[in-house]
């Protein structure tokens, strides 16, 4: 029985004591959700995914009792990022703030769980939510509406103008291990004030034990449906790292949108290292002159994992620049689909857009697809894109073996290097080390 009903949404809103406008927002989304068809694997954005294997009726959307962070998975992440500006945790339906640097709080930084933001920062939040609704209503699908109707955890971060913060803000979303079929609907909203600088690490993790939850022969899937919105005001600089490290029965749908205004920049790094299906759309909208968007991707699949990434670099104003470097490596029978959209509006003259997608196939049965999509309406632009798909270069392997490395070690070194060409530009050493470790573990992982 599906819990995605009008009654469920009403109760969600009432239980949380939400204001009327939000209830209306949710109910409107629910109606759209019910009207929307299930995404089809024949559609452009859902091709090569396993969305047909996900039975939404089996997903429980009710919130379990409050849990405090004491578990090893989140503790490990916390310990890694001991040098941080603050942390917010979410598990199924609940979020709480772990900490926030006192000096930053005094300086006016707001970093709170999303339900607290609904109570205390309603105006800002409402503006953000509604701006999003107005802008891209027509492109939303069933999962987007589902997220709007049901979001129940996440964080709100607001940085005052001119504040430069080097340490990262940490958001950890953990899928509860207690039962299969559970769900998480986190929403992260980031607002960087004029000329501020901020970095955020948004991590999706789950306990190892979840991996083995098998119901008969059919895996019972859990769902993460995440939404992230970044608003970078003039001259600000936002670094956003999203780590998707979920178990092999987790179906994740994620959408991340960055709005970049004059002379501001948003750099995103998406790391996909675990999930039954990871399906992300990352878009950067360059709204005013001087805006810059960089989107990096490091995706590593194995076994039967499916990884699907769509990037959108949308140039909506003149003199804007964007740069995409998305890299995918696949072991075993893993499958990936990358779609890179470059959109240049008629007014966006002097656009400079760059896109590269490289795919390394380590397993004989691994498959990677790469599709660039260009929609260029301006006539004075520089756009380039390139994609490669292929196995590890045997001459590279031979070279390393001539120096004594066995074949496996040689290939591992080459794969690590393949990702390092992306990760080298990452300024945050802690995040960088963590991502390296996640990749390394997966490289060394033998088939069970």
């Amino acid at each position, binding site marked *: 029985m599906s819990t995605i009903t009008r009654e469920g949404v009403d109760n969600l809103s009432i239980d949380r004591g939400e204001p009327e406008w939000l209830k209306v927002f949710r109910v409107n989304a629910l109606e759209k959700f019910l009207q929307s068809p299930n995404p089809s694997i024949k559609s452009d954005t859902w091709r090569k995914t396993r969305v047909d294997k996900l039975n939404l009726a089996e997903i429980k959307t009710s919130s379990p009792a409050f849990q405090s962070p004491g578990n090893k998975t989140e503790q490990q992440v916390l310990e890694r990022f001991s040098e941080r500006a603050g942390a917010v945790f979410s598990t199924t339906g609940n979020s709480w703030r772990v900490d926030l640097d006192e000096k930053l709080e005094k300086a006016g930084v707001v970093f709170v769980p999303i339900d607290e933001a609904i109570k205390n920062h309603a105006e800002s939040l409402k503006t953000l939510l509604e701006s999003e609704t107005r802008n891209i209503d027509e492109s939303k699908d069933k999962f987007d509406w589902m997220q709007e109707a049901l979001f129940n955890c996440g964080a709100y971060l607001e940085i005052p103008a001119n504040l430069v913060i080097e340490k990262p803000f940490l958001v950890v979303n953990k899928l509860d291990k207690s039962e299969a079929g559970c769900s998480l609907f986190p929403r992260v909203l980031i607002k960087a004030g004029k000329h501020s600088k901020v970095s955020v690490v948004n991590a999706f993790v789950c306990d190892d034990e979840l991996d083995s939850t098998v119901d008969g022969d059919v895996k019972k899937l859990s769902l993460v449906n995440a939404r992230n919105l970044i608003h970078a005001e003039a001259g600000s600089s936002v670094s956003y790292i999203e780590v998707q490290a979920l178990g092999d029965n987790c179906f994740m749908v994620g959408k991340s949108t960055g709005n970049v205004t004059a002379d501001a920049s948003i750099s995103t790094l998406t790391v996909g290292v675990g999930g039954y299906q990871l399906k992300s759309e990352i878009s950067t909208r360059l709204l005013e002159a001087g805006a810059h968007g960089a989107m990096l991707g490091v995706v590593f699949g194995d076994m039967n994992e499916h990884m699907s990434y769509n990037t959108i670099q949308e140039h909506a104003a003149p003199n804007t620049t964007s740069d995409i470097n998305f890299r995918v490596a696949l072991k075993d029978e893993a499958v990936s689909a990358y779609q890179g959209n470059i959109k240049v509006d008629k007014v966006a003259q002097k656009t400079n857009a760059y896109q590269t997608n490289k795919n390394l196939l380590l397993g004989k049965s691994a498959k990677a697809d790469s599709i660039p999509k260009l929609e260029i309406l301006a006539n004075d632009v520089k756009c380039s894109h390139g994609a490669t798909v292929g196995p590890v*270069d*045997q*001459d*590279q392997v*031979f*070279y*390393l*073996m*001539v*120096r*004594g*490395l*066995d*074949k496996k*070690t*040689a290939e591992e*070194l*080459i794969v*690590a*290097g*393949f*990702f*390092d*060409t992306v990760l*080298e530009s990452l300024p945050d050493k802690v995040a960088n080390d963590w991502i390296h470790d996640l990749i390394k573990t997966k490289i060394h992982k033998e088939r069970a």
Partner: protein
Amino acid sequence: MSADSPLLSIENLHVEVEDKEILKGVNLVINVGETHALMGRNGSGKSTLSYTLMGHPKYKVTGGCMKYKGQDITEMPTDERARLGLTLAFQYPVAIPGVSVSNFLRASVKAVRGQEIPVKEFRKELKEVMDRLGVPKQFLSRYVNDGFSGGEKKRLEIMQLALLKPQMAILDETDSGLDIDALKTVSEGVNSLVSKDSAILLITHYQRILNYVKPDHVHVFHEGKIVLSGGPELSTKLEEHGYDWVTQELASTTA
């Protein structure tokens, strides 16, 4: 291996690449303490020999065998050959983007020596080798051969040899593409590999490097086999008269 058995012996070696026979019966014996120069025109099969000695999967041995320290290595995987002390300095070293020179060197020293070396010790060893070969420090943080000039690539090859200290080093056209100063440094690097316990096979088509590295034996390679062997004087004769007289002489003896 018995004390008097050769370090490397190649017996009637036949090799095919993509169904085409390139090596047509190579015979060569190299003892410890010896430096051999293998000379010949481009396309005569010299590089095929070096790749085959290291076991590149594209090169198929269809006849004969290779023995190293008395052990048949014809079917042995490349990395095992390397760990036995055999290695190759490439004519065209491949770039490996994302893998830094220092990471790569540590991994290969660890593999060849069979154990991890303490970082401090490794750095010291590295510094000594780099100073000696005039390799700048920046090399270490660059990606292996990525964006390297021809000369830089050759220096890196020699630097690896100096670190790994192979007992049997094959140098494939290590002199090509080097200016005279680089040639001198690289040659010094090669000379430092010479010892009474090791041997070198130097593949070249110029006599130039032999002004700095003195071979004990010189062989002429022609159409997939060694057709003439002699002492150092042979290389001088080749430099003066080219390879034509060798082929002419061959034609007259086989006629």
